[in-house]
């Protein structure tokens, strides 16, 4: 790909994540957009293409009413947990195709309290699956985690190590929702939700918004002192044998997650090895998910996670800093905004201007990974 076609992130904006009781989705999104535009030194009128994603907080393109009726093409995406990735891939594709020189991507959401609840029919399942108490996302994460720990000889204490680090990073991030550190023992002793996972090992649905401004080639370098190159972005859906949420049955053979495909494709396209990653975001809907995803994305080998976690490698000052803003565990998961929060954090880390804990030593290569129902994953490789 020529330099002229390279897509860069030249501005970022974020509305604080949390319950945000008194702010609606559009207001959060508007603020994130204005902050991202200001960060890029652009006005809304300068934006040639826009993409927005929200699962439950409204139609993103109605934001033009607040930002300005400029006639800009504005695409709405709604792709579950991969909404942010889908928005980003849509905008980057439009820029590469020459549709515009600048684009804005926005993701926002606002959810009810408690675990996500879905009608059985929307997943092609009979009512029996829900009435008999099996249609719960938290059960899925617990069942998948227990099997994974068993197969790879990882002790349950590793789940607490993940949550403790997330909360430690969240405590230093002014945009995070949960900002109180907890010792590992307190996390282990927390109210059981679905063992082996306790309440502190799960993220919660929440509210928040993130916006990014993209630009191509030389324009990016004119706008931004240190633009972050979108070296690769891959979106994948599940293949046969993948262990997904709300599965009344599984095939008796190895799990093949869409995360494996999406990450491999992203690294391949970027020409980067996982070992070259200086700062990473992986989907941590719960502690077990992070452990599983560290290996599925190729950032470590399966079974190696405990050594990495215990040795501090995934801490902000470690060899492979993970979820440096506290991840989903500390920020919650407003679905439409969550994937873009990961990109926002990695962009700031690569520009050495993190809002919370900064990875030392001028990191140059970043990676993000989202995964969600019903078996979708999106990964990016970012570089300066």
């Amino acid at each position, binding site marked *: 790909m020529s330099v002229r076609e390279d897509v860069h992130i030249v501005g970022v904006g974020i509305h604080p994540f949390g319950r945000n009781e008194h702010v609606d989705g559009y207001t959060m999104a508007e603020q994130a957009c204005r902050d991202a535009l200001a960060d890029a030194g652009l006005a809304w009128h300068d934006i040639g293409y826009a993409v927005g994603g929200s699962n439950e907080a409204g139609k993103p393109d109605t934001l033009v009413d607040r930002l300005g009726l400029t006639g800009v093409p504005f695409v709405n995406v709604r792709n579950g947990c991969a909404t942010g990735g889908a928005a980003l891939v849509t905008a980057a594709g439009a820029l590469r195709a020459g549709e515009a020189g600048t684009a804005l991507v926005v993701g926002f959401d606002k959810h009810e309290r*408690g675990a996500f609840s879905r009608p059985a029919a929307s997943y092609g399942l009979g009512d*029996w699956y*829900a*009435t008999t*108490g099996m249609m*719960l996302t938290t*059960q899925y994460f617990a069942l998948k985690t227990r099997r994974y720990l068993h197969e790879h000889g990882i002790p349950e204490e590793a789940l607490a190590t993940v949550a403790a680090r997330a909360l430690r990073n969240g405590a230093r991030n002014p945009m995070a929702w949960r900002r109180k550190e907890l010792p590992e023992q307190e996390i282990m002793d927390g109210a059981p939700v679905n063992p082996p996972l306790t309440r502190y090992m799960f993220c919660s649905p929440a509210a928040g918004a993130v916006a990014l401004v993209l630009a191509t080639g030389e324009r990016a370098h004119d706008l931004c002192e240190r633009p972050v190159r979108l070296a690769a972005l891959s979106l994948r859906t599940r293949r046969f044998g993948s262990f997904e949420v709300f599965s009344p049955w599984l095939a*008796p053979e190895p799990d093949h997650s869409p995360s494996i495909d999406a990450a491999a494709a992203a690294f391949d396209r970027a020409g980067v090895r996982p070992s070259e990653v200086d700062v990473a975001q992986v989907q941590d809907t719960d502690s077990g998910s992070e452990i599983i995803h560290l290996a599925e994305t190729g950032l470590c080998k399966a079974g190696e996670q405990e050594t990495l976690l215990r040795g501090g490698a995934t801490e902000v000052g470690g060899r492979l800093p993970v979820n440096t803003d506290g991840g989903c565990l500390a920020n919650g998961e407003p679905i439409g905004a969550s994937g873009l929060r990961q990109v926002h954090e990695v962009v700031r880390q690569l520009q050495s201007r993190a809002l919370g804990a900064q990875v030392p030593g001028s990191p140059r290569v970043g990676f993000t990974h989202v995964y969600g129902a019903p078996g979708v994953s999106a990964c990016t490789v970012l570089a300066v």
Partner: protein
Amino acid sequence: MDVAVVDPALFAGTAPPRLAGSRCPGCATVTFPRRGSCPRCPSGTMAAHTLPERGVVWSWTVQEFEPKPPYRRLGEAFVPYAVGYVDLGVVIVESRLDVPRERLRIGLPVRLTMIPAFLGEDGTEVHTFAFSADEDGEIW
């Protein structure tokens, strides 16, 4: 004796209980519940296939909090219950586990049974499938 079940389509029989799965004549993929087309290969048809009634626990957890509706509890108060996946060899099936908590472990031999799930409109118990510890299975 006939019992009310959550969904008759799940069962190839209830006394003794048998689960009604389907099998692809092309690639031998087995599914539960029954479905009309193979999720794996282009074969357009699936044949009825009664699932084995014995297997081992593949993973497990306990539902500690009361799920939101449409979940229906059996009695006045919510009682936590175990759920898991059971490896039946040809397929791994998700199921309620009628196993005491202290005995829950991956690899536990289990056998298909029926348990009351909730009370129907007329006050009668509606049953669903579950797996309980297979006392004979330990000597396999």
